[in-house]
Every structure is written in structure tokens, then in C-alpha cells.
């Protein structure tokens, strides 16, 4: 009788250990059967992050400019640094579910309320660095374009080979989420997204669209360059 229990338990544990070993084997990514379930849990985690853990008023810690990192790594998905042929012709297009679509020049953005902060940048890879950013809060643009009641997301699109990100409403309207035209007291360098990029210390770096061309208000959750490949969509810190 006891041996019976023994044997059954051994088989159970053996199976579990086998599954564990299999799972750990050879850098397995989850396979076609499990990957959809992992992505479903990732969506659940997005929901927990956005609806339960995220506070629209909690601010990320700020630092003194003396604490800036000497350099901050940058990347783009194009083969070479994305640059405008004629920066004077550049405008940020604001469209989608809004009453007043806009075309904003850098000068117009600079006349909006100016936010400057020195914050820590968190990359999904695990590195971090401190820099100062200058820009206009996304909330100021939202006020100007008067979104329709159905707008729930904003899609930010770049001229870096179509790199884009979708943002939830509350994170986009967070007081530290800005359209940044300056970095460390200077105009944003080309490597970091000139002439305008999205910046916020409340999201991982890959959500902070560089080389902006448009922000579109939608009622459907927009995908994104990395998000569509399996990276977490919400990515809130």
C-alpha cells in the first residue's frame, strides 16, 4: 500500500522534474504551443501594471544635473542614423480621434509649457543611465487637439524605418511624459531622436519613440515595433 503511494509520488515528481529539465533545455523559447499562453499572461501583466499598480500622479524620482551619466547609449532600427533632409519642413502631425488635428513645428512646441527634469532611464536590457530632458508635456498637446471621448490610446510613429509605439491614455497624460526637443541643455542629438522624441521616466526605453512624425489618437490598442515581437506592451516602471 505504502509502496504504491511511494511509486506514484515518484512518478509524479519524475514527470515534473523531467518537464522542468525540458523547459530549461537548450534556451527553449516556449515553442508554438506555449508561446501564445505566455503572451496571454503578458497581456494579463499589462492589465495589472496599468489598472492596479500604475498611479497617474506618482512621479519618478528626479536627480541633480551633476548626477548625469557621461553618455547614454542609443539605437535605431534603420541602417544609418535617421536624419531629416530639411529639418525646417518637419512638423509633428496630431490626428486621429480629435476635434482639431494639428501640425506643430518645434517652435510651436517650445512655446508650450516647458518641462525640464533629470531622471533615470531604464532599458529593458537591464542598464540604466541619468540624463536631463526638456520638452512639452503630452498633456498640453492633448488639451490643444481636443480628443473625442472614444480616444483611449495614442500611437507614436517615427521616421526611423516605421518604428512606432502605442501608449495607454493614463501613461501618456502623466505629468512626466513629454515630447522632448532637448537633452542635457542642448537640442536633442541625432543619435537620440532629433528633432523630437517621446520621453518619460515611467516607461522602459523601448516605449520612448524617437524621430517622431505623428501622434494618432485611436480607440484600438496600437501595436509597436518591439511589442509586436513579444516584448511587454505596457512596459510601465
Amino acid at each position, binding site marked *: 500500500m505504502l509502496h504504491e503511494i511511494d511509486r506514484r509520488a515518484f512518478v509524479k515528481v519524475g514527470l515534473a522534474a523531467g518537464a522542468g529539465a525540458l523547459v530549461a533545455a537548450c534556451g527553449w523559447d516556449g515553442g508554438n504551443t506555449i508561446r501564445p499562453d505566455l503572451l496571454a499572461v503578458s497581456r494579463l501583466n499589462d492589465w495589472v501594471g496599468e489598472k492596479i499598480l500604475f498611479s497617474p500622479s*506618482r512621479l519618478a524620482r528626479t536627480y541633480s544635473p551633476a548626477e548625469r*551619466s557621461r553618455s547614454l547609449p542609443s539605437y535605431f532600427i534603420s541602417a544609418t542614423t535617421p536624419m531629416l533632409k530639411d529639418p525646417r519642413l518637419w512638423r509633428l502631425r496630431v490626428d486621429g480621434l480629435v476635434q482639431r488635428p494639428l501640425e506643430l513645428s518645434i517652435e510651436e512646441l517650445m512655446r508650450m509649457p516647458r518641462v525640464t527634469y533629470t531622471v533615470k532611464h531604464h532599458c529593458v536590457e537591464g542598464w540604466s543611465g541619468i540624463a536631463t530632458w526638456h520638452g512639452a508635456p503630452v498633456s498640453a498637446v492633448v488639451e490643444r487637439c481636443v480628443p473625442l471621448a472614444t480616444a483611449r490610446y495614442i500611437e507614436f510613429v517615427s521616421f526611423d524605418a516605421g518604428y512606432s509605439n502605442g501608449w495607454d491614455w493614463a501613461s501618456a497624460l502623466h505629468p512626466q511624459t513629454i515630447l522632448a526637443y532637448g537633452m542635457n541643455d542642448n537640442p536633442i542629438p541625432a543619435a537620440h531622436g532629433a528633432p523630437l522624441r517621446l520621453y518619460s521616466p515611467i516607461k522602459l526605453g523601448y516605449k520612448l519613440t524617437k524621430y517622431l512624425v505623428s501622434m494618432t489618437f485611436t480607440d484600438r490598442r496600437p501595436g509597436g515595433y518591439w511589442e509586436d515581437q513579444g516584448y*511587454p506592451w505596457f512596459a510601465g516602471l
Partner: protein
Amino acid sequence: MSDVPAPAPAPTPGLVRRHHWIVRLTHWATVVLLAGMIASGLQIYEAYARFGNRDGPYFPSPFNDAQFPAWSRLGGWLAGALNWHFALMWPLVACGLLYLSYLVASGEWRALVFRPRDLRGAIEMQKYYLGLRKEHPRQGKHNPLQKLAYTFIVVLGVLAVLTGLAIYKPVQFGWLTWLFGGFQAARYWHFWAVWIFIGFTAVHVALVFLVDPASLRAMLTGWYRGRFPSHD
């Protein structure tokens, strides 16, 4: 004389009920889940294999720029590993909470938690292991050194979860991140928890086979027949 009731016959001599099914279930589930967490964690680590802000200074670590072998990594690439890590964290934390709730509700924590009064017994146990004492000290379910080890590993589990939260949401749990010394420090401790878990497991398994092999069967079936039948 004849009215003395006969003692109830023991089911099998020397056999004692040792581990509740909740303890056995959470124990083995934790083995599998923690293995998955560590394997996906090693894959995540590979994306930035050091600790400290990008331009330094870096925390001292023998694993700077280390690449772990493919068999030890889970997820295939960073996104896959993150999804494994953030999926397995739920059942792992659920297991931990279920186990701790059982300990509190059943009173079993008394046999497990190391308290100051266990200090003398721990010293005696250490003497025995060092050969300074011939006889194995009397013990209940666990000897004082075991209590120390099991209490420590529960605390380590809690710290692993808290450091994980501190690097998962360093703004929402900013106070926690601050408590661990900042984002990179929390990441550093989260990583070290791995090696302490692995070291603990190696010693734990070795002692099971060297000192009390009957305890393996107890963790599987719940029944124990071995050297330490008393259950305090």
C-alpha cells in the same frame, strides 16, 4: 487488571505522519518553478551582464560579462525570457503564500522558525557535525541548524520577490527600490539570490542523502520512518 484498555495498534511501527500535502505540493512545485525562474533570469541577465549605471562604476561580481551555457537558459531571447519570468512569477508567489499561510494556520511554524532559544541547540548540532561531540543531540521534527537553514531560505524567498518587484516597477515601488539601494543594487541582490538558492539546494540535497534519506520519502508521501521520529 482486565479493565486497562489495550493501546490502539499502531498502523505500522515507527511510521509517523510528517508533511501535510500542502507542504509537499508547494515544495515540489517550487523546485520546478524556481528552476524556470532561474533559467529565464539567466537569459535576461545576458542582455546586460553587469551591474551599475551604463558608464560605471560597476558592482563587484565574478559574473561580469559572463554568458551562461545554453542549457541553463530559458526563453530563447530577451523577450521570450521576460515572458517566461513574468508568467512563472505568479504561481511561484502563489506557492509561497500558500505555504506560509499553511505554516501560520497549522502552527507548524513553531517546528520551523529559528528563535533565539534555538541558539544553544544550534551550537550543539554544529559540534556534532564537526566531530566535537559523539552523540547526535535529541531533536524534534527539525534540529536547530535545520530551523536556521529553513528560516533563512524563507527570508531569502521573500527578499527575492521584493528585489524583483523593486526592479520590475522601480517607480511605482520607488520606496522599495530606494530601500535596496537603488535600481542597479536591487538588480544585483536579485541576481545574488540565485546563487544562494543554488548553494542552499546543493547542501540541502546532499544532507538529505547523507544524514536522513528517509526524509525524501516523507516529502513525497507525507510518511516518515527514520532516525528522527519525534514531532515537536
